[in-house]
């Protein structure tokens, strides 16, 4: 099945693109994609460790199972200012 990953902020700069389509096996989980991306590009590891997951515009745990046409985004820490 196909899923879409979109990249923002530091992810976009490290990866050099705003989104990509990935073909993955059924029952793939968010945590599997996190591992795959870090394996493909080890420079992502520090920011990935500090990021949470959004699936179809909602925060989800890393164990969440993906489905066809899902949109997955890794959300680095937001905020700034006091």
């Amino acid at each position, binding site marked *: 099945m196909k899923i879409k990953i979109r990249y*923002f*902020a530091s992810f*976009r700069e490290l990866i050099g693109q705003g989104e990509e389509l990935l073909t993955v096996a059924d029952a793939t989980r968010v945590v599997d994609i996190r591992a795959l991306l870090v394996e493909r590009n080890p420079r992502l590891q520090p920011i990935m460790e500090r990021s949470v997951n*959004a699936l179809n515009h909602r925060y989800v745990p890393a164990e969440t199972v993906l489905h066809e046409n899902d949109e997955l985004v890794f*959300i*680095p820490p937001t905020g700034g*200012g006091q």
Partner: protein
Amino acid sequence: MEPIIQLTREPLDRDALVAAVSHPSVGGIVVFEGVVRDNARGKNVRYLEYDVYEEMARQQIATIIEEARQRWSLEHVAVAHRFGRLEIGEASVIIVVATPHRAEAFEACRYLIDTLKSTVPIWKKEVATNGEEWVEG
């Protein structure tokens, strides 16, 4: 009334936002305006770059406004955030809260900006004289 949620590359219009929440039943309006500062943690900031996950940010802002509505009696709310490149002194975020009485307006406005900063997917990059970095937390 439906809340006003703006995510835009254009300069924010404070007066228009205040006018939009004004209503005869309103007794207090609190405005929070976040502006770009020329220094951060000892660095000289040249300008800021904001990135936003727009679809999710809209949904998330609507969610925190709804949470605020359950805690305070809000007549009307406007939340506007700018993205792209912002110069020193420009407004990055404006939150306007209109309520029957002032105490609730202050509390709800404080809640909205603090929660927005921690849960809405908007990121800030500081471009300083000695380099640039995405700001976390």
